C-alpha cells in the first residue's frame, strides 16, 4: 500500500442516517487513506450504499460530519467521481456510449459551453482505457452488463477526480470485465488516486485491496486488510454462520 498522506481521501465522523423512521446507519466512524484502494463490505442492508450516498450529500444525514480530501462535502464534491449502481438508470434511454462518457466532462466544461476538441480527446482516451472505443456510437441499451459498467467507469475517469467512489460495480458483471476494471483501478491507485468501492466478494477484497471498512449499520472494523478482515470481525458483521476462508483465494484471472 502507498503510505497514507496527511490528508485522508474520505473521513466520516459519527454519521447517522435514516430513511423515514428506519435507521440505516448509526454513528458510523470511518476513514479511508488517500492513494489507496479501499472496500466497504457488509451484509445486505448494512447500509453500504447509503454510506456512500450520505458521504456525497446525495441523501440527507441526521447527524455526523464528512470530509472529502480534507474539505467539507459541499465544496469538495468536485473532487469526487461517483459511479451509481447500474440498475439505477433506464438503459433504453436514447444516448450513445460516447454521450454518457461526455457527461463526465460537463462539470469542467460547464453546462452551457461547447465540448471542444481537447475535451473530446479526453473522452476518447477514457473510452480507450476501458476498451469501449469501438462501441462509442452504440446506444447504451445494446450493451452487455459488463460493457455498461465499463461505460460508467469511463464516465468517472472522464471526471478526472482525485477520489472515485463506486457502488457495487461488479454486481452482475462478467469475470473478464471485473478483472479489467480492477486492473484499471489498481493503476489509478498507483498514480495516487483514491478509490472507495462497495463490494461483496471478500476474496477479491483480500487479494487486491489495501484497506477495508466492515460495516453492519455501525462500524465493525476499519483499517488495513490484514488486520481488519479477520474471522472475528467478519463474524461480527455477517453472523456466526458465515464461514470465511482465511487464506487468500487465487485471483481467477491471474
Amino acid at each position, binding site marked *: 500500500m502507498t503510505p497514507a498522506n496527511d490528508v485522508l481521501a474520505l473521513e466520516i465522523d459519527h454519521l447517522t442516517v435514516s430513511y423515514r423512521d428506519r435507521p440505516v446507519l448509526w454513528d458510523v466512524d470511518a476513514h479511508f487513506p488517500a492513494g489507496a484502494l479501499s472496500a466497504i463490505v457488509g451484509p445486505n442492508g448494512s447500509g453500504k450504499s447509503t454510506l456512500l450516498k450520505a458521504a456525497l450529500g446525495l441523501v440527507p444525514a441526521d447527524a455526523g460530519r464528512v470530509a472529502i480530501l480534507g474539505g467539507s462535502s459541499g465544496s469538495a464534491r468536485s473532487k469526487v467521481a461517483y459511479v451509481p449502481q447500474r440498475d*439505477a438508470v*433506464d438503459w433504453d434511454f436514447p444516448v450513445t456510449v460516447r454521450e*454518457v462518457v461526455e*457527461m463526465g466532462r*460537463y462539470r469542467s466544461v460547464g*453546462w452551457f459551453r461547447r465540448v471542444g476538441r481537447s475535451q473530446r480527446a479526453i473522452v476518447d482516451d477514457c473510452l480507450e482505457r476501458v*476498451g469501449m472505443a*469501438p462501441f462509442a456510437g452504440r*446506444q447504451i441499451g445494446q450493451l452487455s452488463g*459488463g460493457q455498461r459498467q465499463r461505460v460508467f467507469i469511463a464516465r468517472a475517469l472522464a471526471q478526472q477526480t482525485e477520489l472515485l467512489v463506486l457502488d457495487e460495480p461488479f454486481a452482475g458483471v462478467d469475470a473478464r470485465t471485473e478483472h479489467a476494471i480492477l486492473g484499471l483501478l489498481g493503476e489509478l491507485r498507483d498514480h495516487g488516486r483514491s478509490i472507495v468501492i462497495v463490494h461483496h466478494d471478500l476474496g477479491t477484497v483480500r487479494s487486491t485491496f489495501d484497506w477495508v471498512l466492515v460495516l453492519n449499520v455501525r462500524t465493525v472494523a476499519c483499517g488495513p486488510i490484514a488486520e481488519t478482515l479477520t474471522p472475528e470481525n467478519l463474524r461480527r458483521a455477517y453472523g456466526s454462520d458465515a464461514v470465511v476462508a482465511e487464506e487468500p483465494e487465487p485471483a481467477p484471472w491471474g
Partner: protein
Amino acid sequence: MGVIAEQLSATFPLTYSEAIVAMGAAILGIAAGMLGALAVLQGRSLVGDALAHSALPGVAVAFIVTGAKDPASLLAGAILAGIVGAFMIVGIERTSRIRPDAAIGVVLSSFFALGIVLLTYISNTGGAQQAGLDTYLFGQAAGIVERDVEIMAVMAGGAALVVVAFFRIFKTVLFDRSFASSLGVPVKIVELATTALLVVAIVIGLRTVGAILMVAMLITPTVVARQFTNRLVWLLPVAALVGATVGITGALASSQAEVPTGPVIVLVGVSLAVLAILFAPGRGVAWRAATLARARRRENTSGVLVALETAMHHGAPPTPRELALASGRSARSVRRGLRDLSRAGLVQRDEGRVILNERGAAAAHAALESRRLWSAWLEHGWRLDLPDAREADPRDLRASLGDDAVDQLVVLEREATA
C-alpha cells in the same frame, strides 16, 4: 402571424382561417412532441394525462371569475390548476403510502369530476356566449384565431428556449438522476421544471385537442421518434416534427369533417405510432421478427448440414426421412434445411437420397469448426487477451472476437489437447 398565414394560404390550397388553424396545430404539435418527450423518457407519461384533466376546472373557474372567454385568462386558469394538480400528485406520493399510479389516478379523476360539474353549472346558468367551453373536453381546432396562435407561439417558443438552453442538464438528469445530483445539479428543481414545461405544453394544446385526449399528443410523437433515433438530440426535434405533422393533419381533417379535433388528432397520431412500432428499421416489431426468423433459419440449415455430414460419414447417403430420424429433427425442418442447402448448391439429390457435394462438405466442416471454436472459447476463453470490451458471439466467433483472438484460441486449444 397574419403575414405568415396569408403566405400559407397563398402557397397551399387553404383559406386564411384554415392557415391560422394549421399554424396553431403545428405549434401545439411541436410543443407537445418536444415537452412530452421529457415526461415520457422519465416514465411519467400519465402525469401528463392527470395534468391535462386537472387543467379543466382551472378553465371553468377562470371563466366564472372573469365572466368572459378571453383566451389569456382561461389559459392562466388552466396553468394554475395544472400546477396545483402537479403539486397534489407529488404531495400524495411523498406524504402517504399511496403509490404514484394511484396518486395520479386520484388527482386525474377528482379534478376532471370538478371540471365537469363546473362546466355544467356554467352552461346551465349562462347565456349563449358561454356555450363553447365544452370544446375544452374534446377539442376544437376550427375556433383558433390569430390571437390564440400568438399566445401559443410565445409560450411554445419560451419553452423551447428553456429546453435548448438547459439541454445538457435535462439530458443528464433524465438519464441518471443520482449521477446528476453528484455533479451538484439541483435534481428536484430540474424535475419540477420538466413538470412545469409539461403544463405549458398541455395548456397550449388544451383547447385544440381537449383535456381528455391531450395525453396522446404528449406521448405518441416520442413513441414514433424513439423508433427512429437513438439520441436525445435527435429525438426532441423528430418528436416535434411528428407532433406538428399529426397536429396539422388532424386539425385540418377534423374541421373539414366537422368532428371534434381531439379524437381525429389522436387517431392520426396513433396510426403513425402503430406504423412506427411495427415497421421502423432496427427497432420495429416486424423488422426484429424478420431478423429473428432469418437467424433461426440459418441455424436450422447449418444444423441439417452438420447432420447430413455425420450421416454420410457413417454410411450411405440418407433419404430426408432417414436424416430426420437420425438427427432428431422434424421432417419439416429437414425439408426446409435441404431446400436452402440445394439452393446454395451444397447438396445433390440422387434417387431420393441426399448427397453432400465437395463444397457442401467444406461448408459442413466450417460449421463444425465454428462449433468447436465456441466450446474452446468457453473452456479457454478466460486466458485470452482481448484488446477491448468485445464479447464473443456463438453465431460468429471470428467476426465478434477478431482474427487475432481466434488464432490465439486455436493455439490454446491445441496446447490443451496435445
